[in-house]
């Protein structure tokens, strides 16, 4: 009798262990993605396309920030540029380069639209996202001036 319960317990634990591991392997872990990869999903999901993944690391090896963020007018905000395919084929944003001249052309949909469906717009590995507890608020109210940016 005792041996039997132990065996059942053993099975339970083994089964639980296996299931838990499968869960770990299957569940997406956004923290693992390369630092600064931007997922853009303002419209993609709704239009039945996978979200777009923009790799900063890959582009900064080839271009300085100035090219995109000053010359091409990309704002410093994930999702903040409201990029659409109409703008891209008019040569704006990604379309300034992904035009078959500077880089491969726009018909390679799956190279940009490569994100897991349902992933929200965000930048991967950001400090705010990785905090273990919410950021502290400074005591001196006058110093809290979070003026201007990002609002």
């Amino acid at each position, binding site marked *: 009798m005792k041996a039997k319960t132990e065996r059942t317990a*053993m099975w339970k634990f083994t089964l639980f262990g296996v299931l838990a591991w499968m869960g770990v392997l299957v569940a997406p872990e*956004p923290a693992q*993605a390369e630092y*600064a990869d931007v997922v853009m999903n303002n419209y993609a999901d709704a239009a039945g396309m996978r979200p777009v993944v923009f790799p900063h*690391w890959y582009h*900064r090896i080839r271009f300085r920030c100035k090219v995109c963020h000053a010359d091409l007018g990309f704002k410093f905000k994930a999702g903040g540029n409201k990029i659409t395919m109409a703008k891209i084929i008019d040569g704006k944003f990604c379309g300034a380069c992904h035009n078959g001249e500077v880089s491969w052309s726009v018909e390679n949909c799956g190279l940009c639209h490569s994100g*897991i469906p349902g992933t929200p717009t965000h930048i991967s590995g*950001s400090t705010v996202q990785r905090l273990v507890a919410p950021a502290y608020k400074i005591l001196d109210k006058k110093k809290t*001036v979070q003026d201007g940016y*990002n609002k």
Partner: protein
Amino acid sequence: MKTVIKSFTIAISAAVLLPVSAIAFEASPLSLAATKPVSSAEVTGSVPAKISVSNANVFNRLLKKIEDPNAAPADDGIHDIENEPTFALQPPKIAYKGLPTSEYGNHIDWVKALDDGLLDPRYDRVDPSIEPFVMDLDIVRPVKASVPDVVFPHKPHTQWLHCSNCHPKIFIPQRLANQINMSAIILGQKCGVCHGKVSFPPTTKSCKKCHSKPKPSDWTPPLSDATVKNPWR
């Protein structure tokens, strides 16, 4: 018995790892399951049972270590492996070979990579011969706290960025005219617009990159009012 211990260790390590995946799935049924083996004895109540110790006492309750900071697109948790072109994307490690490393962010020292001439990204969309307009001007910002003072170097910034990326929207171009504190930076403002998102992030090993001017040897931190007025002191 050996298997029990083995699978139990698996279960425990899974329970440790689960909170990581639980971030993605707030209401993950698995994270509920993780507490089951301990609570089931209490629920049935039939066995007077050994006193069960809380399984909350794992070694690292909150620390989340990234196992592979430069994972290939197919393994990184944001790229869809059902999408075939995902496998045509370049894994970062291949591109990073030979570049100077760091312990945070992309785990690449981008400043050194430029200085050593290992990379020369274009400053213009099409013309690779255009040179960046680099300005070598350091701004020292004294810090009230015990950490070294901050030196903001224009040089590495203007190697990558244009003046208009910072002036005047993020910083008024005048020494000490801007209120900056660590809280704002961590929340993604001021220096944190870039540092903590694309440029190297603030973390224990990177503090001294910005806090690089040591305090004089006789410097002591100012005492708080509560200490100065403390009647038991």
